[in-house]
């Protein structure tokens, strides 16, 4: 095995591993699979937001149906995640609309739907709480303290205050949540559309009371996730498993679009308040931020979303005196959860609109204000993390400003219906704080006759996991990309590499694979795979996560190194206003991202373009209308996501400032692109003279907003 320059895969646009299957229709998603004797399942859900279940009337003949409620759970009736607070099936209490109560299965889908319509449930209703400000149950409170806030405010010439609001957002993967549970070998196997096989594995062990080896989870080709298939699959897999356990037959549970939108997790809405001390020349002296997120009825991943949110809440700016207080609280709405960006889009929206308002207040150029305060290498973040040489805030800012011709356009658009706005942002790669150490992820590499096979639980959900991992392994082993295979994410075959979330799959799991490949290469010692296997029989190398030396984190005080590395981004977005309807149309995005190293430039660019488009929806179109605790617009007809006609031209520039502990210098890329567009768009609307501070910035909201001259 010898590497030649020509065979190098990293940095080249090699063919996507499963590309051909996806363009020919051969790729099998969960709804494309059937099993002999398979039943279809449905979930009966609460029609109230808070109260107690009194009676359940089936209203149909039971013959041919499998019917299950909380009493049919063989183990513990919980969806095991951070806290065991969420029942898999409601017992007596109901805490949100669409809470699962009863499960039905039948071999005929029509009969099943008919039966579902005949079920009636009596409740004793209670008064629900929908306003997070009025919640009496806090899931998690975090306080970050740096320096001396009072001293910082004393040094300020001006204090700028502001309140910013962000709405719910639906992930809207095009393939709805779905699984098939199959009873086999005295246990359960679940095939499903999911991001984190081992999350589901643990949830099923607890729910069914089974040992490790009796539960198997296999990811099927997954039609998008964006966080929406991080924790929710543990719930739907649990439901299918309960039905399969009871009926002793395979059960398919695939949501339709309405059910998926009404019942599954969304991005946390929030209110973020800033109070910033600043000198006349634009130096930030004190930053005080209050973050309130609405977690919905159960904890899910809310504490971790809040954690990433507060750590990113200052934006990429230095300041010696900082206090950030964050809370995520319970309300009687369906639980919110993971969505690309995971708290950071919410808080950085507030930070970047606030930065624009500071510039407006001081009457100084907002690019200069950002340049003055942007993180440099050696600066410390709010948690006291000292930033490394790969800190690129200034570089992405300057590149975006010059590439977009920002200053000239801003002058030229003044007084017209065109606007232009900018946002500077950063995003930590990998689990927050000590998360990676706790996860202790493993990856394995197996020698094959023709090369090597990757064994990881990381899932391909569109971002190119298999391809990018194979590139890293190929170049480290010095073998052709085509000689590297990737095993299915099947808990019976692959070790627990942790969840496929948090922009960690390349930087963290990719690094473990690189170390596996290094050891395999040493072990081969120049022998061919065939010779080695003939001599020794087999070779599997397994490695566990090992962080860079000197990383420190204290979860009690929230001090230390919050992330191994940060990516850096700057967006400039141009918009046009329809003078009659106040519809805002984004026309052009200039996105500059520094990601360490683009292992596969086409895939990396795809992450930036796709994340940008989702954020355009977040900023302008995607409004979840909650009425009495339920999503009133749970259809694609009235929950609008960007189509070709709503998505602007996106000009992407990728910069590379290598992170020394990432594979080939790579940092994370998946989430960061969704942090910048919303504030850039709102700042573009502000350049039209409208004081908008909340999203989605629908025409109604813009019309209601005061004009800038009036509110200053």
């Amino acid at each position, binding site marked *: 095995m010898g590497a030649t320059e020509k065979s190098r895969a990293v940095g080249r646009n090699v063919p*996507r591993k499963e590309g051909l299957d996806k*363009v020919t229709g051969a790729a*099998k*998603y969960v*709804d*494309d699979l059937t099993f002999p004797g398979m039943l279809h399942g449905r979930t009966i859900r609460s029609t109230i937001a808070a109260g107690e279940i009194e009676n359940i009337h089936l209203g149909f003949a039971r013959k041919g149906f499998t019917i299950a409620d909380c009493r049919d759970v063989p183990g513990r009736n919980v969806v095991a995640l951070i806290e065991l607070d969420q029942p898999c099936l409601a017992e007596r209490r109901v805490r949100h609309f669409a809470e699962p109560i009863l499960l039905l299965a039948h071999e005929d889908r029509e009969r099943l739907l008919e039966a579902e319509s005949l079920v009636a449930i009596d409740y004793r209703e209670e008064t629900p709480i929908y306003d997070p400000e009025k919640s009496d149950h806090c899931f998690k409170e975090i306080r970050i303290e740096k320096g001396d806030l009072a001293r910082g405010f004393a040094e300020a010439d001006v204090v700028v205050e502001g309140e910013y609001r962000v709405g719910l957002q639906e992930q809207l993967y095009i393939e709805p949540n779905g699984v098939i549970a199959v009873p086999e070998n005295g246990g359960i196997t679940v095939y499903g559309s999911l991001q984190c096989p081992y999350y589901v594995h643990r949830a099923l062990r607890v729910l069914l009371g089974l040992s490790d080896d009796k539960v198997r989870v296999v990811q099927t080709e997954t039609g998008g996730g964006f966080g929406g298939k991080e924790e929710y699959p543990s719930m739907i897999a649990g439901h299918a498993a309960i039905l399969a356990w009871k009926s002793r037959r395979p059960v398919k549970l695939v949501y*339709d679009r309405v059910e998926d939108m009404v019942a599954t997790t969304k991005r946390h809405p929030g209110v973020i308040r800033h109070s910033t001390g600043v000198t006349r020349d634009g130096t930030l002296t004190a930053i005080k931020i209050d973050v309130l997120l609405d977690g919905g009825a159960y904890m899910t991943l809310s504490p971790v979303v809040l954690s990433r949110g507060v750590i990113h809440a200052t934006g990429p700016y230095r300041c010696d005196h900082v206090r950030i207080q964050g809370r995520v609280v319970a309300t009687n709405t369906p639980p919110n959860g993971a969505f690309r960006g995971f708290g950071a889009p919410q808080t950085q929206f507030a930070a970047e609109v606030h930065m624009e308002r500071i510039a407006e207040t001081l009457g100084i150029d907002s690019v200069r204000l950002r340049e003055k305060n942007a993180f440099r290498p050696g600066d410390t973040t709010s948690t006291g993390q000292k930033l490394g040489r790969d800190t690129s805030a200034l570089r992405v800012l300057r590149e975006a400003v010059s590439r977009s011709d920002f200053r000239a356009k801003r002058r030229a658009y003044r007084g017209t219906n065109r606007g232009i706005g900018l946002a500077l942002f950063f995003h930590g790669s990998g689990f927050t704080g000590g998360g990676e150490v706790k996860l202790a992820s493993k990856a394995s590499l197996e020698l094959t006759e023709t090369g090597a096979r990757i064994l990881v639980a990381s899932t391909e959900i569109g971002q190119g996991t298999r391809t990018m991992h194979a590139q890293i392994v190929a170049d480290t082993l010095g073998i052709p990309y085509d000689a590297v295979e990737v095993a299915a994410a099947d808990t019976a075959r692959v070790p627990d590499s942790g969840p496929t979330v948090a922009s960690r799959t390349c930087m963290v799991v990719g690094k473990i694979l690189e170390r596996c490949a290094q050891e395999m290469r040493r072990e081969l010692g120049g022998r061919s795979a065939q010779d080695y296997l003939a001599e020794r029989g087999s070779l599997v190398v397994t490695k566990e996560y090992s962080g860079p030396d000197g990383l420190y984190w204290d979860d009690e005080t929230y001090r230390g190194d919050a992330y191994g590395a940060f990516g850096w981004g700057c967006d400039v977005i141009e918009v046009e206003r329809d003078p009659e309807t106040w519809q805002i149309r984004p026309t052009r995005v200039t996105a500059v991202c520094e990601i360490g190293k683009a292992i596969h430039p086409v895939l990396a660019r795809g992450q930036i*373009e796709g994340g940008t488009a989702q954020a355009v929806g977040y900023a302008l179109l995607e409004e979840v209308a909650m009425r009495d605790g339920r999503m009133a617009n749970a259809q694609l007809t009235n929950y609008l996501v960007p189509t070709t006609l709503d998505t602007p031209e996106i000009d992407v520039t990728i910069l590379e400032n290598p992170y020394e502990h990432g594979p080939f210098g790579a940092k994370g890329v998946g989430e960061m692109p969704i942090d910048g567009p919303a504030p850039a768009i709102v700042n573009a609307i502000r350049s039209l003279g409208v004081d908008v501070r909340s999203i989605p910035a629908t025409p109604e909201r813009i019309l209601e907003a005061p004009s800038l001259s009036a509110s200053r």
Partner: protein
Amino acid sequence: MQAPPMKRLLDVLREECGLTGTKEGCGEGECGACTVLLDGMPVNSCLIPFAQAQGSVVTTIEGLEGRHPLQDAFVVEGGAQCGICTPGMILAAAAIPRGATLDEIRLGLAGNICRCTGYTSIYRAIEKARSRRHR
């Protein structure tokens, strides 16, 4: 092909014909994941009762047999990420006349939602497929 007249064309294709390349994303004709060509015209197969397809030629992604230039171009340019919208997107793109401008391509794909790509790589794929075809 025999099936109940009011059964959705989508279900007939997937269940009776075993052609699972056609996907269901919303079931209400908004997302376009179930796009097939009916006598060469893109339609949402979730909105078409089987009876309406009588006597028509239905082309699904399987019907392109992996040989359409768009298919390779979607792989090379990153036009397919998660892949769930891809069969419908490729069929909708195949129905756009040659020589269409970018705005006309946008209009031609306006009924097909992709949540992964931001569409830009899809335009690049279409452009690439055309330049090959003309060679």
